[in-house]
C-alpha cells in the first residue's frame, strides 16, 4: 500500500475511534448529574410515581451499558428514540430540519468560500496597498462581532430600511426552491460574513508567506505578470493550508448555523436543539448533539487527509 493510502486508512480508523468515544461522552454525560435526571426535570412536582414514569421512559431503570448499546444500534438503524416533551419519534422531528440545516450551510459555503478565496488572493496581490488594508480592517471587524449583531444589522439595513428581503426565513417542505433561496439570503449573508473573514485572512497569510521564497523571486525576475506569479506559482504551494482552513470553516458553518437559525426563525436542527435545551428534552439534545459533533469530526478528518494529500511533504513530518 502506498504511504498516502495507509495514512488515509489510519486517519479514518482514528476518526471512527473518536466518533465512538464522543458518542459515549454524549450518552453518559447524563450520569454526571448528582442524583437523577428524572427528579431534576420534575423538580417540585416529583412524586414517586412520576419519577418512576420518567425513569422508565428515559430507560434510567436499566443498566447504563445495555442502554448505550441499544441507543447506538437504534441510531445505526435510523431509530433516534423519542422526544420527552411530546413523545414523537426524534427521526420524524429532525428529518426535514436536517435537510434544511445542510441546505443552509451548503448555500453559505457556496457563497463564502469562493468570495473569501478571491478576496484573500486580491489582498495578497495588492498587499500593503489601500485595498489590502481595507479588506483587512473589514475582516478583523467581522471576526469580533457576535453573529446575532451582524444578523440584526443586516435585518435593519436590508429589511427594515431598504425593504428588499424578508426578515424571517420561514420555509416549509413545500416551499419552491427559488422562494427558499430568496428567503434564506439573509441567514446566508450573516454566515458568510462570520466565516469569510477567517478564510480570507489565512489565504492571504499563506500566499504572502510564500512570496518571499526564491522560486517566486525567479518567476518575478523572468518578467511574469503579478497575477500569474500568484495563481500559477504561489497558489499551488499554498493549497495545503488553504484547503485545511476551508474545510475547518465548513465545520464552523455547521456549528454557526445554531445562532443564525434562531435569529431568523429558520426551521433547522440548530433551532430544534436550542428549543430542546430550554425544555430539557435530553434525548433530542443528545441526538442533535451527536449529529453536529460527528459532522464536525468528519470534516476535521477530511481537512487532515486533504491537507496531506495536497502537500505530500507533510507525510514525513517529524
Amino acid at each position: 500500500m502506498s504511504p498516502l493510502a495507509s495514512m488515509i486508512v489510519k486517519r479514518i480508523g482514528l476518526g471512527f475511534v473518536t466518533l465512538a468515544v464522543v458518542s459515549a461522552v454524549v450518552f453518559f454525560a447524563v450520569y454526571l448529574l448528582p442524583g437523577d435526571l428524572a427528579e431534576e426535570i420534575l423538580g417540585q412536582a416529583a412524586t414517586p410515581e412520576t419519577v418512576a414514569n420518567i425513569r422508565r421512559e428515559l430507560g434510567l431503570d436499566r443498566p447504563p451499558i445495555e442502554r448505550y448499546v441499544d441507543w447506538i444500534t437504534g441510531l445505526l438503524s435510523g431509530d433516534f428514540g423519542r422526544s420527552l416533551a411530546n413523545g414523537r419519534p426524534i427521526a420524524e422531528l429532525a428529518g426535514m430540519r436536517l435537510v434544511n440545516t445542510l441546505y443552509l450551510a451548503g448555500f453559505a459555503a457556496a457563497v463564502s468560500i469562493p468570495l473569501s478565496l478571491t478576496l484573500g488572493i486580491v489582498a495578497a496581490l495588492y498587499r500593503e496597498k489601500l485595498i489590502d488594508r481595507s479588506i483587512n480592517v473589514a475582516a478583523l471587524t467581522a471576526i469580533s462581532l457576535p453573529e446575532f449583531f451582524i444578523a440584526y444589522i443586516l435585518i435593519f439595513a436590508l429589511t427594515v430600511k431598504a425593504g428588499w428581503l424578508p426578515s424571517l426565513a420561514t420555509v416549509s417542505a413545500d416551499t419552491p426552491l427559488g422562494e427558499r433561496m430568496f428567503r434564506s439570503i439573509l441567514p446566508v449573508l450573516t454566515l458568510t460574513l462570520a466565516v469569510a473573514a477567517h478564510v480570507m485572512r489565512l489565504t492571504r497569510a499563506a500566499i504572502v508567506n510564500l512570496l518571499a521564497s526564491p522560486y517566486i523571486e525567479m518567476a518575478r525576475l523572468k518578467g511574469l505578470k503579478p497575477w500569474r506569479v500568484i495563481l500559477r506559482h504561489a497558489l499551488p504551494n499554498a493549497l495545503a493550508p488553504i484547503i485545511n482552513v476551508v474545510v475547518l470553516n465548513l465545520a464552523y458553518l455547521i456549528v454557526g448555523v445554531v445562532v443564525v437559525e434562531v435569529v431568523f426563525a429558520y426551521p433547522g436542527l440548530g433551532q430544534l436543539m436550542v428549543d430542546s435545551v430550554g425544555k430539557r428534552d435530553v434525548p433530542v439534545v443528545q441526538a442533535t448533539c451527536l449529529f453536529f459533533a460527528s459532522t464536525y469530526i468528519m470534516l476535521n478528518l477530511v481537512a487532515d487527509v486533504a491537507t496531506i494529500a495536497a502537500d505530500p511533504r507533510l507525510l514525513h513530518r517529524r
Partner: protein
Amino acid sequence: MADLATALRSAPPSAWFGISVSALYVFVALGAPVVAPFGETQVVGPAFAPWGGASPLGTDNLGRDMATRLIYGARNTVGIAVVTTVLAFLIGGGIGLISGTVRGWVDQVLGRIVDVMMAIPSLIFSLLLLAIFGTSVVSMITIIALIEATRIFRLARALALGIAVLDYVEAAKLRGEGLIWLITREILPNATAPLIAEFGLRFCFVFLFISALSFLGLGIQPPTADWGSMVRDNAALISYGDITPLLPAGAIALLTVAVNFVVDWLLHRSSGLKD
C-alpha cells in the same frame, strides 16, 4: 512600574483605543449603581417607550429604563465573563502546567481526555451539558469554564514542556524543590507573557460565548440585566426601524474589538517585534 509607563507611551493608537475603551467599561461596571439613573429591575414607564424624556434610550419590553439596563449589563455580562475566564485559567492553566512538568502517564491521560472534549464543538457541547444540568448562571459559568479550560490546558502544557527542560529548572529539581515550587517559582514566571495574551483572547471567546448563550435564552436569566438577553427581548423593535436592540449588541462588539486591539499589541511586544 517605570517599564509599564514607557511601554504605554510607545503604544500605537489602536492599543490606546483598546485600553481606553476597556477602562471605560470597567469604570461603568464598577460604578453601575452610581452612574445609572434608575434601579436595575425598576419599571419606569410603559413598555417600548421611545427615546427621550426621563429615559434617554427609551424603555425595554417590560418598561424598564434601557440606559440603566445597559449600564448594569456592563457589570453583569462583563463580570460573569471575567469570573468564567479566571476560573477557566485556574483549572486549565493549573492542570496544564502540572501535566507539562510531571509528564508520564498523568500527561497522557489528561491529554486524551482533553482531545475528546475538543472533538466536540464547544457551543454544541455546552448546549448538551446545559440540557442535562439545567440553565442557571452557576451551571453556565462552570460549563464554559471547563470547556475553555481544555484550550488553555493545551497552551499551558506546551509552555511547561518547553520550560521544564531548561537548565535552571533541572538545577531546582536537583536541589530537591517540590512540584509546587517548580511550577510557581521556576516555570510560571517564564510563561506569563504568552499566558496574559491568551487571557485576553480567551476573555473575548468567553464573552462572545456567554452573550450567544444568553441571546439564545440559555445563559444569564432574567431579571438580571445582560446584553445578550437584552437583544433577544427587544429584537421585535428592529422591525419598526428602532435601533435600540442594536445598542447592547454593539456594546458587546465594541468591547471585543477593544480587547483584541490590546491583545494584538501585547503579542506584538512579547514576540519582540518592535516596529
